[in-house]
C-alpha cells in the first residue's frame, strides 16, 4: 500500500533528484564540459517532451475509445523526423545563424524583425499552450486522485484543486530556478535539458514496464494479447481516413510549431549534426512509447470495471493488481511527462513574452537616451520569472475554469490546431522570398480567429462563450458561419473541420496578401538570409581577433555591464591568460565569452553587433549589415541632398554669372553710350565756345566773319537741341512711355508729308523719289506723325548717303496679309554687309560726322517707333542700293 505521504515523499525525492541532475549539468556546462551535454543522445531524449502526460496517459485512453487512432499523434512527428529532416536542418541552421530565441523570434526575425509578428505569435503560443499546461496539471492531479481513491483507508481525502495548485507552484519554482538561473546568449539551458533527457528515460521505462507487466504478467505473451485484442471492442473501431490524415498532418505541424518543441529542437540545439541521430532515434523512441498502448488498453477494458477512466489505465491497471511499485513507477512516468512539458513550455513562452512583450514595453517606458547599464540584466531575468509564473498561472486558471471535465485528448488536439497556425507563415518564410510581413500577420490573424471560433471557444463549455443559438444557427444567424460547419461543411469531425478551414484560409490569405504587398528592404534581406541559409552561413563561426582593441571592449562592456562587473571580468580573463596588466588579449574565446555576457543584458543580436563593431574582420551578421546599410542609405540620402543642393547652387551661380555678364555688358554699353553722348555734346560745344570766344575777344573781325561765326554758333546750338530732342524721344520710345495717337490715315498722305519735310530744308542735293500713287492708296489705323517721322529719316538718309551721281529713291508699296510693306530703295552703294547689323544701333553713324549732320540716333529711333506701332523696320540686303523695309500693320 502506497500511502499519500509516501507518494508525496517519492515525488519530492524525484524532484530533488531532477534538481540534482539539472544543477550538476549546469555546473558541468559552466566548467566547459559540454561534450555529453551536447551529445546526440541528450538531444534526441530532450525531443521526447513531445510525449507529455497526454501521450503517456491519454494514448491508452485514446486507444480504448478510438482504436489505433492514437498512432497518428506519433506518426506525424516520425514522418517529419525521417522525411523532413532537411527542413529541420534548415531550421536549426537558421536558428544558429540568426540566434533565434523562440518560434516568435523566428517569425519576427524572418519578416524584417517585426515586433508585431513577434507579439502575434507569442499571443498565439500562449493561448494555444495554456490549455495544454492545464492538461498536464489535470493529469498529475488525476493521478494523485487515483491513489487517494483506491486507498482512502489510510488517506486523507485529497482536494483536487489544491493538488493542482501546489503542483503548479512546484513547477513554477523549478522552472524559475533552472530556466532563469542565468541569461545565456544562446538561450541554452543545459540543466533543464539534461533533466528532461532523464525524464524521457523514466517515461519510457515506466511505460515499457507497465506494458511488459500487462503482456507477460496479466496475459500470456504477445499471442494471447492479439487474441484478446480481436475479442475486445477496440477491434470494432473503424479507421476514419479523413480524420487520420487530418491528425497526422496536425501532429506533424504541431511538432514543428509547438513552442516547447522549437525550444528543444532549435534553440537548445548545440549542433545540427545531432539531427542525424535524432532522425532515426526519435521515431524509434516514439515507437517504443506506443508499443504497449493497445495491450494496456485492451487489458484495461477487460479487467477493470466498466466506466473506469481509460485515461488512467496505465496507473489503475497495476494498482488493481496490487503492483504498487509498478504503479508508483508509472506515476513517476506520468509525472515526468507532465513536468517536463510544463517546464520547457514555460521557458519557451516566458522567453517570447519577455522578449516580445515585456522588454519592448519596458524599453519604451524608459526615458529615451537613458544609458543602458548593468541593471538591464536584472530586468530581463525578472521579466522571464514573472512570465513563467504568468504562463503556469494561466494554465492553472484554465484548469480551474474549464473544470477539468473534457477528455484529455481533445484538449491536446485543440492546442495542436492553435499552434499549428504558425506553420504556413513559417514554411513560407523559409522557402519563399516573396512572402511579406503584412501577409504573415494577416495569415496568422486569420488562422487564429478561425481556430478560436471553430474550435477553442466551442470547447470551453458549450453554453459558455458561444451561445447555443450561435452553435446551431451560426453567427448573426448566418448558417454559413456555424462554428463547426463553416460554409455548409457540416458533418465533418470538428477538429478536422477546424484544421481544414483554419489552415486553408490562413495559407490563402498569407499567399494572396504576399502577392499584393511588397517586402520592405529589411524583410527582403532577412528573407534571403532565411531562404538561402545554406549559402550564407557555414555553420558556427567564431570571432577573429584582428583589430579588437581590449580598451574599446572594456569601455563598451562597462557601459553595459556596469564598471565593476566589467572590470572584474576583464581582470579575471587577463589573469587566466597569464598577463600582468588588467587588459586581456582579445582572443576569439574571450570575445565569444564577452559576447555571451553582453547578450544576457542587451540581447544576443545586439551584443553580437556590438562586438562585431569592435572586432574588425569578424563574421558579419545580418543585423550588422542592416545597421550599416541603414547608415549607408542615410548617408546616400544626405549626400544626394547635398548633391541636389550643390547642383542648385551651381545653377544659381550660373544664373548669377549670367546676370553678372549681362550687367557687365550693360555697363559697357552704358559707358559706350555715355561716352558717345559726351562726344556728341562736346563736339558742338567746342565750336560754340571757340567761336563765341573769338567773337568776344577779337576786335578786328569783318562783319562777314562775324555773321559767319555767329551762324556757326547758331547751327551748333540747333544741333545740340536736335540731339537732346532725339535722346529724349528715344528714351521715351524705349521705355514704352510714348503716347501714340492712333487714327485712320492714308499712306499716300503720310508719304507726301514725309517727302516734303525731308526735302524742304535743303534743296541743294537733288534726289528723285519714285512713287506709285495707286499703290500708296492704303488706309491705315496708325499714328500718322510717328510714321511720317520714320519715313523722313529714311528719305533723309538716302539723300545724305546715296553716293550715286543721279540719286534715285524708289518707294514701293505692297500689301501682305494684315500688313503693308513700304520699301525704300536707293541706287547707291548700299551698306557693307558687315555693317548691316549695326545700322539700327544708337550712334552707329557709319560715315563721317560732316555728312551725317545728326547724332546717329535716327535709325535707332525709327526702330523704336515701329516697335511701338506694332510693325518693324529692317535693312534689305542685296537690293542694288541701300534698301529699308517698313512693315506697318493695317490695324494695330
Amino acid at each position, binding site marked *: 500500500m502506497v500511502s499519500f505521504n509516501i507518494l508525496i515523499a517519492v515525488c519530492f525525492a524525484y524532484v530533488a533528484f531532477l534538481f540534482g541532475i539539472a544543477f550538476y549539468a549546469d555546473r558541468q556546462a559552466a566548467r566547459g564540459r559540454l561534450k555529453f551535454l551536447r551529445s546526440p543522445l541528450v538531444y534526441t531524449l530532450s525531443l521526447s517532451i513531445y510525449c507529455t502526460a497526454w501521450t503517456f496517459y491519454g494514448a491508452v485512453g485514446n486507444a480504448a475509445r478510438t482504436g489505433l487512432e492514437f498512432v497518428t499523434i506519433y506518426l506525424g512527428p516520425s514522418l517529419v523526423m525521417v522525411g523532413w529532416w532537411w527542413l529541420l536542418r534548415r531550421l536549426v541552421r537558421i536558428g544558429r545563424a540568426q540566434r533565434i530565441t523562440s518560434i516568435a523570434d523566428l517569425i519576427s526575425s524572418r519578416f524584417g524583425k517585426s515586433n508585431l509578428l513577434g507579439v502575434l505569435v507569442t499571443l498565439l503560443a500562449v493561448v494555444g499552450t495554456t490549455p495544454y499546461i492545464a492538461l498536464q496539471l489535470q493529469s498529475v492531479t488525476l493521478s494523485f486522485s487515483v491513489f487517494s481513491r483506491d486507498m482512502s483507508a489510510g488517506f486523507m481525502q485529497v482536494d483536487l484543486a489544491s493538488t493542482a495548485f501546489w503542483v503548479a507552484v512546484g513547477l513554477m519554482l523549478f522552472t524559475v530556478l533552472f530556466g532563469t538561473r542565468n541569461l545565456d546568449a544562446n538561450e541554452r539551458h543545459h540543466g533543464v535539458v539534461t533533466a528532461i533527457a532523464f525524464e524521457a528515460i523514466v517515461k519510457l521505462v515506466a511505460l515499457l514496464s507497465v506494458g511488459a507487466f500487462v503482456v507477460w504478467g496479466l496475459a500470456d505473451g504477445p499471442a494471447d494479447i492479439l487474441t484478446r485484442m480481436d475479442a475486445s471492442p477496440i477491434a470494432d473501431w473503424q479507421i476514419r481516413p479523413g480524420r487520420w490524415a487530418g491528425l497526422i498532418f496536425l501532429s506533424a505541424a504541431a511538432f514543428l510549431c509547438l513552442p516547447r518543441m522549437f525550444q528543444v529542437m532549435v534553440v537548445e540545439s548545440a549542433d545540427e549534426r545531432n539531427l542525424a541521430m535524432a532522425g532515426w532515434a526519435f521515431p524509434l523512441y516514439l515507437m517504443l512509447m506506443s508499443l504497449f498502448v493497445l495491450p494496456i488498453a485492451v487489458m484495461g477494458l477487460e479487467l477493470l470495471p466498466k466506466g473506469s477512466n481509460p485515461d488512467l489505465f496505465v496507473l489503475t491497471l497495476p494498482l488493481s493488481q496490487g503492483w504498487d511499485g509498478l504503479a508508483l513507477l508509472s506515476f513517476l512516468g506520468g509525472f515526468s511527462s507532465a513536468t517536463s512539458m510544463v517546464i520547457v513550455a514555460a521557458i519557451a513562452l516566458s522567453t517570447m513574452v519577455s522578449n516580445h512583450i515585456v522588454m519592448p514595453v519596458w524599453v519604451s517606458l524608459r526615458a529615451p537616451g537613458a544609458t543602458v547599464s548593468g541593471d538591464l540584466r536584472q530586468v530581463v531575468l525578472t521579466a522571464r520569472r514573472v512570465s513563467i509564473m504568468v504562463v503556469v498561472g494561466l494554465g492553472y486558471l484554465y484548469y480551474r475554469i474549464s473544470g477539468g471535465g473534457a477528455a484529455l485528448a481533445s484538449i491536446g488536439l485543440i492546442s495542436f490546431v492553435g499552434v499549428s497556425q504558425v506553420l504556413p507563415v513559417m514554411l513560407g518564410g523559409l522557402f519563399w522570398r516573396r512572402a511579406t510581413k503584412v501577409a504573415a500577420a494577416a495569415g496568422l490573424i486569420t488562422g487564429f480567429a478561425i481556430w478560436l471560433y471553430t474550435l477553442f471557444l466551442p470547447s470551453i463549455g458549450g453554453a459558455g462563450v458561444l451561445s447555443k443559438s450561435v452553435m446551431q444557427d451560426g453567427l448573426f444567424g448566418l448558417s454559413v458561419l456555424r462554428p463547426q460547419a463553416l460554409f455548409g461543411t457540416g458533418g465533418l469531425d470538428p477538429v478536422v473541420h477546424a484544421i481544414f478551414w483554419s489552415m486553408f484560409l490562413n495559407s490563402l490569405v498569407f499567399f494572396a496578401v504576399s502577392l499584393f504587398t511588397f517586402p520592405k528592404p529589411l524583410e527582403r534581406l532577412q528573407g534571403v538570409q532565411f531562404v538561402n541559409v545554406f549559402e550564407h552561413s557555414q555553420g558556427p563561426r567564431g570571432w577573429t581577433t584582428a583589430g579588437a582593441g581590449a580598451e574599446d571592449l572594456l569601455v563598451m562592456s562597462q557601459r553595459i555591464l556596469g564598471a565593476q562587473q566589467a572590470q572584474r571580468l576583464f581582470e579575471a580573463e587577463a589573469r587566466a591568460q597569464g598577463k600582468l596588466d588588467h587588459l586581456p588579449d582579445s582572443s576569439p574565446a574571450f570575445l565569444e565569452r564577452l559576447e555571451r555576457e553582453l547578450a544576457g543584458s542587451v540581447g544576443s543580436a545586439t551584443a553580437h553587433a556590438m562586438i562585431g563593431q569592435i572586432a574588425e574582420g569578424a563574421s558579419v551578421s545580418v543585423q550588422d549589415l542592416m545597421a550599416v546599410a541603414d547608415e549607408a542609405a542615410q548617408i546616400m540620402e544626405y549626400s544626394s541632398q547635398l548633391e541636389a543642393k550643390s547642383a542648385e547652387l551651381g545653377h544659381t551661380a550660373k544664373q548669377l554669372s549670367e546676370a553678372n555678364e549681362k550687367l557687365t555688358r550693360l555697363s559697357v554699353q552704358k559707358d559706350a553710350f555715355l*561716352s558717345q553722348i559726351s562726344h556728341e555734346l*562736346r*563736339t558742338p560745344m567746342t565750336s560754340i565756345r571757340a567761336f563765341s570766344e573769338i567773337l568776344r575777344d577779337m576786335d578786328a573781325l569783318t562783319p562777314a566773319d562775324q555773321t559767319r561765326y555767329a551762324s556757326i554758333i547758331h547751327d551748333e546750338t540747333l544741333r545740340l537741341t536736335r540731339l537732346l530732342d532725339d535722346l529724349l524721344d528715344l528714351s521715351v520710345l524705349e521705355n514704352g512711355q510714348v503716347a501714340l495717337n492712333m487714327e485712320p490715315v492714308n499712306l499716300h498722305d503720310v508719304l507726301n508729308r514725309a517727302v516734303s519735310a525731308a526735302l524742304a530744308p535743303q534743296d541743294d542735293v537733288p534726289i528723285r523719289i519714285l512713287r506709285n500713287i495707286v499703290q500708296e492708296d492704303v488706309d491705315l489705323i496708325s499714328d500718322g506723325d510717328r510714321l511720317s517721322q520714320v519715313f523722313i529719316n529714311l528719305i533723309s538718309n538716302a539723300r545724305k548717303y546715296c553716293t550715286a551721281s543721279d540719286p534715285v529713291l524708289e518707294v514701293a508699296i505692297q500689301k501682305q496679309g494684315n500688313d503693308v510693306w513700304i520699301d525704300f530703295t536707293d541706287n547707291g552703294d548700299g551698306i557693307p554687309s558687315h555693317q548691316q547689323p549695326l545700322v539700327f544701333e544708337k550712334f552707329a553713324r557709319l560715315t*563721317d560726322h560732316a555728312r551725317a549732320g545728326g547724332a546717329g540716333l535716327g535709325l535707332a529711333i525709327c526702330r523704336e517707333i515701329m516697335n511701338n506701332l506694332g510693325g518693324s523696320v529692317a535693312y534689305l540686303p542685296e537690293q542694288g542700293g541701300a534698301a529699308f523695309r517698313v512693315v506697318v500693320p493695317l490695324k494695330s
Partner: protein
Amino acid sequence: MAKTVLLIEDEPNIVEAIRFLLARDGWRVETHGRGDTAMDAVAKHRPDLIVLDVMLPKRSGFDILRDLRAAEDTRHLPVMMLTARGQSKDREMAEQYGVSRFMTKPFSNTEMLDAVRELAEA
C-alpha cells in the same frame, strides 16, 4: 619762316575755329579730315606740330599716334591730342602712347594757344 601745324580733325566747324586761332598766331595751318590717310598728310606737310583728334573717320587718333611714335622722323614730333569723350581712360592711353599734350573739348582759345606755343618752344 612760319612753323607748320597739321590739324587732323573731321569736324569742320572745329577745324575752322582752330585754323583761325593758330593762323592769327603766325602758324601755317594745314588740315586733314580723315584717319586712314593721316600719315600721308604728315609725310606730305612735314609739320612742326600736330593737333590730333581722337575720333576720326576710318581710323582712330590713337592708332595714328602710335604710328607717329614708331616712325623715325616723327618720334619726337610734338603731338597734341583732342578728345570730346572726356574719359580718363583716353588720357591714360594717349600718355602711354607718348602724347605730348592732351586736351579735352571744349577748350578755351587761350588754353589752346598757350599749349601750342609751349609745344613749339620745347
